[in-house]
């Protein structure tokens, strides 16, 4: 019995188990600290739907051996461009949403392709190059947001300023378009965001199905055993680029879903650190730098968002102070550090 | 092995001593300077005129009758110098006194008492 427990601990990693137990504890505490259990669960589910696709986007690149996508921002920027342009075009409702997605995919393919070329040239150091490429592109886009000729009065600075505002409201366009789709109301406090979850399930299914195709298997082979893949005649570089494009596209879709649920498009420096929560969530779900699966995405996103939404509400009620920010930083970055240190050791 | 431990402990002790030293000579103290009437025991001293005040070579400025000013000083030993000014003219009369302040002390100096060399020209509080 003891061996079995030790095995589980080694397999899952102590931090993950600690975090899981912590989350369970938080849930148990809810009624005792004056927080409603059902609204808490609701919060977690909503946030899960909001962030899930971004976490999902990391999977192709991990599988193809490109590591954790610290350059997620490129996909996010593609998504932002899609969102902003769709509003500029005054499209609303589902049409608006899908326009945004369509334009975003276009940009994502372009960005992803270039990004993939770069990563191929820097094999072995992808993660650190990706981080800074991601940062530079966000800062570069800051300049672009100021300069690009957008005209929609809902988006540019008031009083004749030029350039886009920092946050743009999606209300009236496609705010909650998915969330309200077949919305299920349970009791008076739970609003189940059916649309969002369905969409997430759809994308998850597509990714899962993809990896069962010939190309998907080839991609996984490239990541787990490059030489073997090469000997089978797989073009390693091509597969990597495809995986990067895939990741970028999914991320672009992911940020639009995020905005749909959140209600705001956040420009300028907001996306700067957005890669980290997604990566932390994936790692929390059991993935590592070289391995990731759909299971990791679902478990990880749920756990991570759970911690993120439960900690402030519960702990703040106990300690009467807002520690949530510090805890969020510690948990999310700590997870990443932990995952990065799992594999190699210097004796 | 033992030698190493001894060296290390000595080093730490030295560093702590340096720390205490720095703390003491760097600690900021508040010194209030009054040019006010004061009664010490049975003798009353009155503030007659304006004085130009220096504390530790830092010019505090002119203190008129009844005025109070603040000087922030660091360390243990200090010197206060006052220069008499009667009717807007420097009379050339200078008085100086030295005083020491312990780590957490702040002080209030009374000029009339100081000039007359009364014992309680300075009042120290923790």
């Amino acid at each position, binding site marked *: 019995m003891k061996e079995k427990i030790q095995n589980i601990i080694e397999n899952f990693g102590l931090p993950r188990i600690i975090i899981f137990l912590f989350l369970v504890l938080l849930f148990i505490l809810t009624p005792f600290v004056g927080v409603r259990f059902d609204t808490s669960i609701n919060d977690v589910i909503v946030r899960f739907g909001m962030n899930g696709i971004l976490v999902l986007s990391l999977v192709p690149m991990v599988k193809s051996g490109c590591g954790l996508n610290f350059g997620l921002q490129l996909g996010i920027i593609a998504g932002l461009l899609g969102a902003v342009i769709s509003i500029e075009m005054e499209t609303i409702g589902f049409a608006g949403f899908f326009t945004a997605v369509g334009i975003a995919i276009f940009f994502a393919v372009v960005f992803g392709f270039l990004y993939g070329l770069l990563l191929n040239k820097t094999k072995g150091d992808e993660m650190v190059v990706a981080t800074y490429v991601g940062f530079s592109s966000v800062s570069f886009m*800051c300049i672009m947001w100021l300069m690009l000729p957008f005209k929609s009065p809902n988006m540019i600075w008031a009083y004749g300023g030029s350039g886009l505002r920092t946050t743009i409201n999606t209300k009236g366009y496609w705010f909650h378009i998915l969330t309200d789709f077949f919305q299920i109301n349970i009791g008076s406090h739970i609003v189940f965001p059916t649309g969002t979850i369905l969409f997430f399930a759809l994308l998850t299914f597509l990714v899962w199905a993809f990896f069962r195709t010939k190309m998907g298997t080839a991609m996984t082979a490239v990541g787990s055993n490059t030489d073997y893949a090469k000997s089978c005649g797989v073009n390693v570089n091509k597969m990597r680029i495809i995986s990067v494009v895939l990741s970028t596209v999914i991320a672009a879709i992911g940020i639009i879903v995020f905005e749909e649920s959140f209600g705001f498009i956040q420009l300028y420096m907001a996306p700067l650190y957005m890669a980290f929560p997604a990566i932390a969530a994936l790692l929390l779900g059991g993935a590592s730098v070289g391995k990731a699966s759909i299971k990791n995405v679902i478990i990880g996103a749920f756990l991570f968002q759970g911690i993120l939404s439960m900690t402030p509400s519960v702990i703040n009620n106990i300690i009467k102070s807002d520690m949530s920010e510090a805890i969020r930083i510690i948990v999310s*970055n700590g997870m*990443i550090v932990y995952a990065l*240190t799992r594999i*190699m050791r210097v004796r | 092995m033992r030698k190493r431990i001894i060296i290390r402990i000595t080093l730490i002790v030295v560093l702590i001593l340096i720390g205490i030293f720095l703390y003491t000579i760097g600690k900021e103290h508040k010194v209030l300077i009054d040019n006010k009437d004061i009664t010490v025991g049975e003798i009353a001293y009155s503030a007659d005129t304006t004085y130009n005040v220096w504390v530790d070579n830092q010019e505090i400025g002119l203190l008129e009758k009844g005025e109070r000013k603040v000087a922030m000083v660091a360390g243990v030993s200090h010197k206060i110098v006052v220069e008499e000014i009667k009717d807007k003219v420097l009379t050339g009369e200078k008085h100086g006194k030295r005083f020491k302040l312990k780590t957490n002390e702040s002080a209030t100096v009374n000029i009339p008492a100081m000039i007359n060399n009364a014992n309680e020209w300075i009042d120290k509080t923790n």
Partner: protein
Amino acid sequence: MMKKQSLTKTMNPGVHFLINYAVPIIFTILIAFAIPLSGLSGEYFIRELMIRLSRDSFLILALLIPVMAGMGMNFGIVLGAMAGEIGLIFITDWRIIGLSGMLLAMLISTPIAILLGYFAGIVLNRAKGREMVTGFMLAFFMNGIYQLVVLYGMGNIIPISDSSILLPRGYGIRNAISLLGIRQVLDKLIPLEIGGILIPVASLLVIATLCVFIIWFRKTKLGQVIRTVGQDNDIARTLGIDVGRTRILSIVISTVLACYGQIIFLQNIGTMNTYNSHEQVGVFAIAALLVGGASVSKATIPNVFVGVILFHTMFVVSPRAGKELIGQAQLGEYFRIFVSYGVIAFSLALYAWRKRIEKENERKKAMAFKRGILVK
């Protein structure tokens, strides 16, 4: 059979130089354009340069030793900066002013810096080959811990007697603390004015001393050990060197130096942004070093100073140039940030690319040799 030789070895030495020093060269060109554009005077520049050289160099110098040890750009200097700030919080609370204040801050933050450096070293040892990303994330992680200590612990579990530096709610340090007591205490220690420009002699002396120390250190036994570890871990190991311990030591030294560097930096500015001052320290210091021509595997003292001059000139020039060029100073702000990140991205990509090409050529050579073909 045609032999493909190393891309970087047989080419024209001129081109070789260009590739190695691509970053500083591009930078110099950029600046050459931007300076006249910004319309700032020469005197302004010299004054700014003097300030920045004396203020920032120490921090950047702290990056050199981990590079010697083969650990790349040490983002762990952020941890050193945090240690320094904790020291400063205490001396501000205790009201210790002047040079004693600054020295005392250095004294009490040293053990904290050593501890943090040791922790960072252990973590980085377990992330061999990924030191930079791990260091980067570690800095973020530590920031969370720092917040826990400074925003919640101080005034609470950690006694703070001066309530003016605490938040209104009674615990947690304020966002900005005035360091008036030690402001410019090192800079003005030995005052010298030439042509109206104040020269912080003491600070420059301290920096010069550090440079001398680093040069001397390289030649010591420990320095040699570190360099061997940096060259090749396996060779070092066969020579009996404890590679892990050496790496940890180099990070500890770097962290302590960064701690002092941050104190020197803040002493010049005179105010401390409790939660922001250390955030960009890592990025800017590393960007400056890379702009100076350093790479992940090689960084020298000249790199530091060339880097400070180039990088900070850009820093000063961008907002104005942005305003002249496009009419928005805000643009210059973003441009500055973009350049900082972009420089690092570009340098790292270039370095990774070169590394890969050399590896490829080594592999090809080895394979050709195996096939019995003589390699020249």
